[in-house]
């Protein structure tokens, strides 16, 4: 709520104003100082996600021309670098460092730590309901076998996002399924576009892994069902890389320069050529059209570009082999 009067000059303040129209001081100067102190405290205690959240709240209370915005962006950039180094993040497994026992301990610790991630969605009532609704609707349309395969494929995609967010210690919800569209997870704010890109790409990367697994099983067993799941999974994950609206592609390309985006466009064209599939070609055309509307490049992220290109081309190969 906007204060009633400016604490500096006493001018009455209209709702929503961020700067006093008379003396031009910040309306929320005192509150901003408190928020900044909380953010610095959280950063000092390695609660990097909390610090990120506080700085984002501060940005909302600053007018667009405030010089403090650039200073906060620099703080967020530092937080992002610390998150990428894994600070305040992963817990290292304890136990013997070599030998067979080390392998057993590591596997058990993996199940205890990462394994619970696989069950995370099942602990949330809303997520369970959405999952069963999704399964029921597709079961009716396509049969339970294909419906279950699609559900698992999408679930693994969302697990990719969740795993990435948990690595950065950012709060994340269980996935919610939406029949006809897919699924989504809600999460806390991210400090930099580069981390946003990492998190966004983790979904299609996990989807690629799931599609490869299904493809492998299909080749080994000769089951057409598995090839169909691989094909469907690869196509929807490629579709997620279209840089529009809420799709992952929009965040994936956010930190890229103009040149990096052109290189990604070339990778998309190569994917269409590899896949030789009408739906893939349609997706690639949509992605290329959408890229035209994203002309303002970012600071650059070569590693992210390489990962994005690898995932895209990999999906194209899966589509080809599962046709």
């Amino acid at each position, binding site marked *: 709520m906007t204060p009633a009067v400016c604490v500096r000059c006493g001018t009455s303040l209209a709702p929503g104003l961020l700067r006093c129209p008379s003396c*031009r001081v910040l309306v929320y100067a005192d509150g901003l100082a408190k928020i900044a102190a909380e953010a610095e405290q959280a950063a000092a205690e390695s609660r990097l996600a909390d610090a990120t959240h506080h700085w984002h709240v501060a940005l909302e209370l600053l007018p667009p021309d405030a010089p403090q915005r650039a200073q906060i962006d620099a703080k967020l950039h*530092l937080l992002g670098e610390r998150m990428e180094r894994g600070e305040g993040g992963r817990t290292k497994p304890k136990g013997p460092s070599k030998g067979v026992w080390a392998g057993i301990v590591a596997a058990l610790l993996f199940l205890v730590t990462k394994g619970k991630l696989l069950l995370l969605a099942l602990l949330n009532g809303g997520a369970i309901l959405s999952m069963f609704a999704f399964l029921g609707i597709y079961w009716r349309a396509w049969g339970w076998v294909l419906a279950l395969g699609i559900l698992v494929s999408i679930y693994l995609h969302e697990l990719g996002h969740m795993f990435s967010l948990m690595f950065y210690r950012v709060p994340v919800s269980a996935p919610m399924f939406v*029949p006809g569209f897919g699924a989504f997870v809600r999460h806390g704010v991210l400090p930099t576009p580069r981390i946003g890109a990492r998190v966004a790409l983790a979904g299609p990367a996990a989807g690629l892994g799931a599609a490869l697994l299904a493809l492998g099983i299909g080749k080994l067993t000769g089951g057409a069902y598995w090839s169909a799941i691989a094909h469907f999974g690869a196509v929807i994950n490629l579709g997620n890389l279209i840089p529009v609206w809420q799709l992952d592609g929009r965040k994936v390309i956010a930190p890229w320069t103009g040149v990096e985006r052109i290189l990604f466009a070339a990778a998309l064209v190569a994917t269409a050529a590899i896949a030789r599939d009408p739906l893939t070609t349609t997706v690639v055309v949509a992605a290329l059209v959408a890229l035209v509307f994203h002309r303002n490049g970012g600071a650059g992220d070569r590693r992210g570009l390489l990962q994005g290109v690898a995932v895209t081309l990999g999906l194209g190969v899966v589509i080809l082999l599962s046709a």
Partner: protein
Amino acid sequence: MTDTPISFDDAPAPTSGASCSRCHRSLSSYWSLDGAVLCESCAQALREERTSGDGAVGRVGKAFGLGVGGMLVGAAVWYAVARATGWEIGYIAILLGWLVGKGIHRGSEKRGGLGYQVMAIVLTYLGIGIAKVPFEIQAQIEAGRQSFDSVAVAESAPRTESEARAQLAELDSSLAAGKELEDDAQGGILGLASAFGAVILLALMIPFHSIIGGQSVIGILIYGFAIWQAWKVAARTDPVLSGPHPVAGAPS
């Protein structure tokens, strides 16, 4: 530099006093319209521009025109993708709804409102149906051909005259449903109007038929999302006006 605490205590401006952001006149009290600082006359003038009923007919016409444009573009994209891939993709339904809603909202000079939202729903529903009309016509023609083929195969089997007449009547009906539009289009202006009316009627019926027939729950959800998107985008946006707010220290 990045470790330096940030200061939010900006120095007050050397010359205090508010001025209107539109006419730049000094103010002893100001009004705020959507965050802009204005004098009373500028605020009232802007508010009048955005809420007056003058030009309503023009706005409705422009909203309808832009909404129809959005509908046709969205329907074309839906048809093209469905034709190329055999898939009905939910995100394109959202695109269609967004295009319709955006066109209507822009045509209404960013006012929006219940009437415009109803227009958005109707055009979005119609857009989905129009995209499916070519497939429906093709299905009718195919059904007619299959009936003809089944009649040809059954001709060698002994049957009564009444059975033969019934099969031929069914064949005529199926072929007529598919061919009617083509014949009408070849019949001049009256034919074109008749064909246009038939297309609109078909477009209105197809989604309804899918819903009542319970053929696809996913399809119903897709229609729902498209319509919800159009409804949301065409919603009313009222200007937020507050004032007068006195400026401290200014001569009244």
